[in-house]
């Protein structure tokens, strides 16, 4: 797999040469967000199977890369997600109730049921709205970073995409513009080895994703995406470079999608379970937990209590939002434009009349 940045050793201790030196509170918070994302995924997939939410895209196996990268950024930095990063939204302070309400798409959903599950947004945390189109967020992140540079704001943008995303035209134009304009962007490729059914070796003939950065005139680094501390270390350095005018960085987090692409996907159709099992032995949650234990700040009781606490928090959030009614009829027509033009007003009035007043 070539040279990769790693921090947590087999014995659970951090390699002093690469350790980002998180405080005890920081490393516990990191673990908490990762475990929350894992727990959320399990619960939401189960809600989907029960027919209570329509769809879900789990991130199992990628929590270190997702949470670690968001954790390494500063709050005023902007995050441009792909669509598999609920842990990043949680790091940004998005309340569980808002996130879960988006999955239900009901009246409590901040975006009024307009998008399928997993397409949430949280402006208060500089967490951008999500499109399902792979790669289209990449030029947006570059433009926002470029704008920050024009305004002389010392911030950076973090943009997530997968190995599949690196094949898109938007990846190319985004990387190229970022290189030319030295946009303060951290490109985080979550190389999870599979783009639905397509394995990495059929996605690109490039030996690594990271090496693609060379052609755009900036650095690419490869990091063990199962090692949250390694991701934090790599993204912190990339963020520092971006913020201080040293330009963009491509970070390739080598990871694995342990679950299906989405609730509609059956990965047994295209990949060998033995491969999954091999990666499962490097579960990012286990790796960070071993580190916490080795560091002497964690034990089985604490872990059990945290599992319970997070599970309860999710249960509580589901209960708080699930029973809400569908969004009001108006919400179908508002926000297309800032001010509703005549044709939308007319369409709203027509459907209101046909449905007999009310919503």
């Amino acid at each position, binding site marked *: 797999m070539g040279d990769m940045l790693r921090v947590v050793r087999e014995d659970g201790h951090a390699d002093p040469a690469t350790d980002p030196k998180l405080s005890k509170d920081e490393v516990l918070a990191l673990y908490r967000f990762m475990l929350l994302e894992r727990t959320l995924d399990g619960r939401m997939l189960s809600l989907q199977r029960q027919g209570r939410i329509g769809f879900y895209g789990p991130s199992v196996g990628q929590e270190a890369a997702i949470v670690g990268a968001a954790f390494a950024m500063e709050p005023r930095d902007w995050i441009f997600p792909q669509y598999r990063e609920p842990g990043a939204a949680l790091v940004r302070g998005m309340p569980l109730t808002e996130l879960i309400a988006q999955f239900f798409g009901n009246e409590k959903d901040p975006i009024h049921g307009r998008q399928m599950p997993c397409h949430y947004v949280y*402006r208060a945390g500089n967490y951008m709205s999500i499109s399902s189109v792979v790669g289209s967020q990449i*030029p947006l992140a570059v433009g926002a970073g470029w704008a920050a540079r024009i305004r002389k704001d010392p911030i950076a943008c973090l943009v997530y995409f997968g190995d599949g995303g690196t094949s898109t035209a*938007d990846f190319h134009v985004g990387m190229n513009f970022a290189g030319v304009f030295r946009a303060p962007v951290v490109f985080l490729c979550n190389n999870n080895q599979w783009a639905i059914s397509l394995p990495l070796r059929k996605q690109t003939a490039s030996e690594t994703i990271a090496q693609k950065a060379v052609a755009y005139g900036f650095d690419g680094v490869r990091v063990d995406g199962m090692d949250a501390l390694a991701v934090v270390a790599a993204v912190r350095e990339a963020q520092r470079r971006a913020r201080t005018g040293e330009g963009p960085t491509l970070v390739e987090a080598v990871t694995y999608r342990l679950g299906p692409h989405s609730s509609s996907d059956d990965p047994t159709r295209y990949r060998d379970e033995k491969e999954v099992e091999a990666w499962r032995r490097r579960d990012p949650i286990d790796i960070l937990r071993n580190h916490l234990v080795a560091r002497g700040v964690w034990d089985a009781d604490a872990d059990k209590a945290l599992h319970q606490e997070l599970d309860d928090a999710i249960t509580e959030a589901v209960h708080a939002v699930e029973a809400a009614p569908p969004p009001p009829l108006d919400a179908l027509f508002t926000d297309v434009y800032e001010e509703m033009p005549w044709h939308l007003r007319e369409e709203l009035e027509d459907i209101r009349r046909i449905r007999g007043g009310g919503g």
Partner: protein
Amino acid sequence: MPPMNIVQAVNNALREEMRRDDRVVLLGEDIGRNGGVFRCTEGLIDEFPDRVFDTPLAEGGIIGTAIGMALYGLRPVPEIQFLDFIYSAFDQIVSEAAKMRYRSGGQYSVPMVIRTPFGGGIKGGHYHSQSSEAYFCHTPGLKVVVPSTPYDTKGLLVSAIRDPDPVLFLEPKKIYRAFREEVPEGDYTVPLGDAAVRREGKDVSLFAWGYMTHVCLEAAKRAAEKGIECDVVDLRTLVPFDLDAVLDSVKKTGRAVVVYEAPKTGGFGAEISAQIAERAIEYLRAPILRVAGFDTPFPYTLEDVYMPNADRVFAAIQKAMTF
């Protein structure tokens, strides 16, 4: 102020808006030192060296990064060198810019104006001539604006830049330098969504936008020599278009001819025809007629045959009158 042509009106509007609002930035191919291939941005890089950007040659990158700038709080005005080159940015326009306000529940918006020359008449063949406004009119969340005079060009462009939503601003390249008129210096706007009646008449309504407005005026002049008085309505904004202006005219004349350069099938003129049919059929004394480009790719040598001209519009006027 000396009279201006459309190119000068674009330049003047951009310059004044950039002076007024430091969030306004320009980006595109060859728009800096070269002033744009049509010279619309000439000299702006001298006054605003940090806000005019020559970009790499990638329309998807120009629009994608402009959207990011707008999200961040700037007011980008990207230029696409020819509308014919916009398609590699189509996904960014349709999937990102147009849907951003809606899909984010109003948390984010994309106040951006995409300026681009469109239309035929310059011997540009397939890829420097097309009028593909219908694709964009079919995209909720976008506004589509088409000036036909220098005065309107400035007033509409200023309105578009100040608009909170993404606007596609289509500049009729055939008449970029065709004529000049008085364009006031300083602040004025032409509101989006208002049509202009360019000529009044009681017999036939002609509906058009951009260069076709002038074709209609020529046909109307010829019709007047035969004693037929035409109303010529320049829509100016296609989304949202001025329904009242369309209906007022049709109710007065009872005859409608819709003129557009794009391929006839599914063109925006078909929408105007349908709206008239739905709302004013009882006023009609003749079928609604369309004079449009043909359902072929835009041709090179025979472009004069392809593009609607006064002869074809006049023929439609006569057909409507003799029905």
